[in-house]
């Protein structure tokens, strides 16, 4: 009996700690940062400037122009793909569907998938792909834009994409990148790993609960 009580106590304690841990969890801010010192009301104040996502200029699967304004006030997850990708994309999309299904009805959340093959992936191609993937509405955008811009954007997301290799394949990371309302990178997750994607879903909940100061 004593043993049983001991075991229950251990379980309770562990659960309490776990709960505590979750409620206090804050996601890190990733990327480069630098300090800026300025004078406010005669006092010198030092502020940290974090790396943010640059202005973007894209078209989504509905043919609508998308820039940073359209993403303002949103938490979003970004990734890079192309519709004819035979290797890691299907598994990334399968896993991203879990994220989509978890948050498609909540406000202030988006998924942004940039095509790295804009020549092939035109608006109608992206729309057809979205239909086949079973996504609708404005939660998940498939974005087409200039290739060089996409490569720059990828860099700011800490993701690597490259030109086609000799076999005609695009090399790209399978990372899902979590961006907060201030356009800062708050997490990167291997989009081919279901466990990492489950963690992403939990982290989105944490980020959504973060006070917007």
């Amino acid at each position, binding site marked *: 009996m004593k043993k049983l009580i001991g075991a229950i106590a251990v379980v309770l304690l562990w659960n309490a700690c776990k709960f505590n841990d979750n409620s206090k969890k804050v996601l890190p801010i990733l990327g480069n940062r630098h300090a800026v010192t300025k004078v406010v009301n005669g006092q010198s104040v030092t502020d940290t400037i974090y790396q943010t996502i640059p202005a973007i200029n894209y078209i989504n699967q509905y043919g609508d122009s998308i820039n940073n304004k359209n993403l303002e006030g949103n938490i979003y997850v970004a990734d890079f793909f192309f519709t*004819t990708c*035979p*290797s*890691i994309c*299907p*598994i990334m*999309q*399968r896993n991203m*569907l879990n994220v989509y299904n978890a948050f498609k009805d909540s406000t202030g959340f988006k998924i942004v998938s940039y095509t790295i093959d804009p020549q092939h992936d035109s608006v109608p191609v992206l729309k057809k*792909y979205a*239909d*086949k*993937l*079973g996504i609708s509405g404005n939660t998940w955008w498939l974005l087409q834009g200039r290739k060089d811009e996409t490569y720059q954007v990828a860099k700011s997301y800490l993701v690597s994409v490259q030109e086609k290799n000799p076999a005609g394949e695009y090399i790209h990371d399978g990372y899902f990148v979590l961006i907060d309302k201030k356009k800062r990178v708050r997490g990167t997750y291997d989009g081919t790993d279901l466990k990492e994607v489950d963690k992403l879903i939990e982290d989105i909940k944490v980020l959504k609960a973060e006070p917007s100061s």
Partner: protein
Amino acid sequence: MEFDRYFSSGSLVYQAHCQNCHGTNGEGLQGLMPPLTDSAFLKSNKTTLACSVKYGMKGKITISKRRFEGQMPPNDLAPIEIANVLTYITNSFGNKMGTINSEQVEGDLATCR
């Protein structure tokens, strides 16, 4: 005995070459990638499955009463590997078609169109 060998080797070939698109349980991916659970389709196309794996597929097909179109890339596999993976697929995900051995695969590959 022969079946077990084919089947277990086939599961490894499946993980390496098929699973990304067709899924862990052969469920496919929405309207993009067809599932491998349509036993009737597999049975009626048994002799062309090897060609489809080796040279890929293109065009419209109906699987599980749903239309799919697009392209499956070719897979440069040896006949024995194709036999392994076909034995795995046609005896998983609710399918039950017995062993497809490498002699059958070689015969089928000779008739690819």
